[in-house]
């Protein structure tokens, strides 16, 4: 008995000694291996669903950097997602880029627009800044939708890149897994680096951060550009996944999807985007399959989750893990 207590105390000190912000490589490896196995053994349709979840996990995680940590709200984040896909398509169709360069161009276009719109949006705070992100999104959507000589209008751009680069679904899934894993680990590094500390400080108390010499605007702008870049990575992957791009990708529905994933996943938690993407996409797929009024069903489930666990799925997971930990 005494020995047992000693073991528990030892493991607790080991836990306490561990840097909570270091990447838990064992966990990452386990998740990646599990996901890779799933991708290889699952039938194509499940593979497609897994690919979609991975892409949206990255998009929602990028958005989460703003929502949970930098103290900003973006009501137009699909712009940076969609522009990744448009950057890829337009650089190939209009500038004759080879596909590899096009893939690199996608996220860079998103980051560029993140910089331009970000400069505008950080001038304001709170709801005013959020409204400005919405305005930027509306402008982008209108241009993409109407400038059809360049963007193809509502019938979009197709045929510029082979669907999934011509790879088999599980092969492309493994590519997406690699890219998304690296990108999410980079986001983790950003959040828990000195820069991330500054971003969080500005997000939590801008006045105090300013007193310490960290100007709100520049820090939020950096966070905005990083978020736009990684949203662009997700969008570029999505563009390759479908082999096309449409104005919908920069539209309000994709923005709402991202926001819902983060809220569902649990604000103020790094995993929000990942949990949110898994659950939201699952609901979205299943509910539409079995119910005519699927939107209502998804809506009700989201309301219930938010009421039962305001800290979202991340909070729920944390509580469950803690309880199991205590039992052990």
């Amino acid at each position, binding site marked *: 008995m005494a020995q047992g207590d000693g073991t528990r105390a030892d493991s607790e000190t080991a836990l306490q000694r561990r840097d909570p912000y270091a990447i838990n490589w064992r966990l990452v490896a386990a998740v990646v291996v599990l996901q890779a196995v799933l991708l290889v053994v699952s039938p194509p*349709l499940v593979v497609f669903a897994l690919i979609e979840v991975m892409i949206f996990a990255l998009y929602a995680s990028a958005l989460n950097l703003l929502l949970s940590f930098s103290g900003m709200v973006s009501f137009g984040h699909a712009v940076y997602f969609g522009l990744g896909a448009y950057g890829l398509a337009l650089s190939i169709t209009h500038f004759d880029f080879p596909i590899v360069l096009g893939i690199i161009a996608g996220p860079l276009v998103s980051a560029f627009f993140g910089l331009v719109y970000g400069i505008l949006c950080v001038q304001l705070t709170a709801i005013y800044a959020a409204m400005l992100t919405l305005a930027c999104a509306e402008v982008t959507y209108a241009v993409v*939708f109407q400038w*059809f000589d360049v963007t193809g*209008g509502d*019938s979009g751009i*197709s*045929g510029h890149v082979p*669907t999934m680069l011509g790879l088999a679904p599980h092969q492309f899934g493994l590519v997406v897994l690699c890219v998304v894993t690296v990108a999410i680990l980079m986001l983790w590094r950003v959040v828990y680096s000195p820069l991330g500390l500054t971003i969080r400080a500005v997000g939590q108390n801008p006045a105090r951060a300013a007193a310490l010499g960290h100007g709100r605007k520049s820090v939020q702008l950096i966070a905005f550009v990083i978020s736009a870049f990684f949203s662009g990575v997700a969008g570029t992957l999505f563009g390759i996944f479908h082999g096309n791009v449409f104005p919908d*990708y920069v539209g309000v529905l994709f923005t709402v999807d991202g926001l819902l994933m983060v809220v569902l996943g649990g604000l103020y938690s790094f995993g929000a985007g990942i949990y949110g993407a898994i659950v939201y996409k699952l609901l979205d797929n299943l509910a539409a399959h079995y119910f005519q009024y699927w939107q209502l069903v998804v809506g009700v489930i989201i309301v219930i989750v938010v009421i039962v666990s305001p800290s979202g799925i991340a909070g729920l997971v944390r509580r469950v893990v803690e309880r199991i930990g205590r039992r052990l």
Partner: protein
Amino acid sequence: MDRRTLLRISTVLALAAGLGGAAQAADPVKIGYVGGISGACGGLTHSAVKAMKIALEEINAAGGAAGRQIEVVWRDSKTKPDEGAKQARDLVLTEKVDLLTGVCSSSVFMAINPISQQYGVPLVSAISGTHKATVDFGHPFVFQTQPHTLMEGKALAEYAARQDWNNIVTMGLDYEWGRTTVKVFTEELAKLKPEVKISKQLWPRIGETNLTSYITAALSEEPDAIMGVLFGSGTNSLIKQGRSYGLLERTELLTFLSTESYMSLGKDIPDGVHGWARGPFYALDSDKANAFIEKYRKAHDGEYPNDWGMLGYDAMYIIASGIDAAGGTDPEKFRQALGSMTFDTMRGPLKMRMIDNTFNAPSYLGVTKMTDAYPFPTMSDVNVIPGDVTLPSEETVKALRAAAAK
């Protein structure tokens, strides 16, 4: 497990396999429907789904196609391209459908098109108007049974050339449909009647509710007609706001008016507006059409089918006849069958040409009139512009394909 049990199990398994084989012989033809049941297309698609279900019942009651019953798996694209693609892929891979149909918006059609190409599953579009899927990005297994944008632009020019109009102002919604239709219209009209002057081109924004500045700009040219490529609320605003400027007294107006517009706008549409439509039930006076309309109304509380319903019903019959003639669902045989037949549809006899798998579907243009026959206005003196006149030339198709492949 003793040998006897093993024997029993294997007998049962063998029987089951045998029965499975027998069932396979009479397996139904499986068709996957992907359409905007919800979302932006929801208002149009509901009638198409109802109509297609009626056609399906009739076809199956008459023995199906190629001796097999037809089964349709209905899926909602939510009018989102990525969702449409996902549903189409699901239908092909898990439901193992032999053929895809449906599609409403251009983007959804364009998103499903490559899936049809990739898996070699025929896609028959019943109600999407973009020409890009069959012309620019056409492949052997994508088919279109309704007039597309290029055809409609030409039909409008044909109609305008028959009128006594020498000075026209165009007013197209500022997006692909509006721009392309106006472009084709002006080009074709210049060929048909070079003396007609297009004095101004106006491009109201989509969703714009205040059209007064466009109305005054148009009227300042004192045109003989305004050619509007507008729909729904755009047409509604133009007519309502134009009233205070005496728009309809000072000029003629031609605009897109399909059945659901007449139903929703009702008496707001005055007599004397020139409208164009794709499948106006009231103008199709054949036994086939009348029987369908009666059946549809009976099943749906006296509601009339809209244009998309008419197109959907025709599309289902075209698919079934194609499968019947091909003796099954082999994509190439299906295509050859469609290309070699004449289809007796509610819109008259239709044929498909092989270069772009497009049907010579007619366009309908006429003048609005409130009559006692219906609780909403309809078009009278309907001009049917046949598809043979409006289909783009083979050179145009080749040029557009070459540009798309670049």
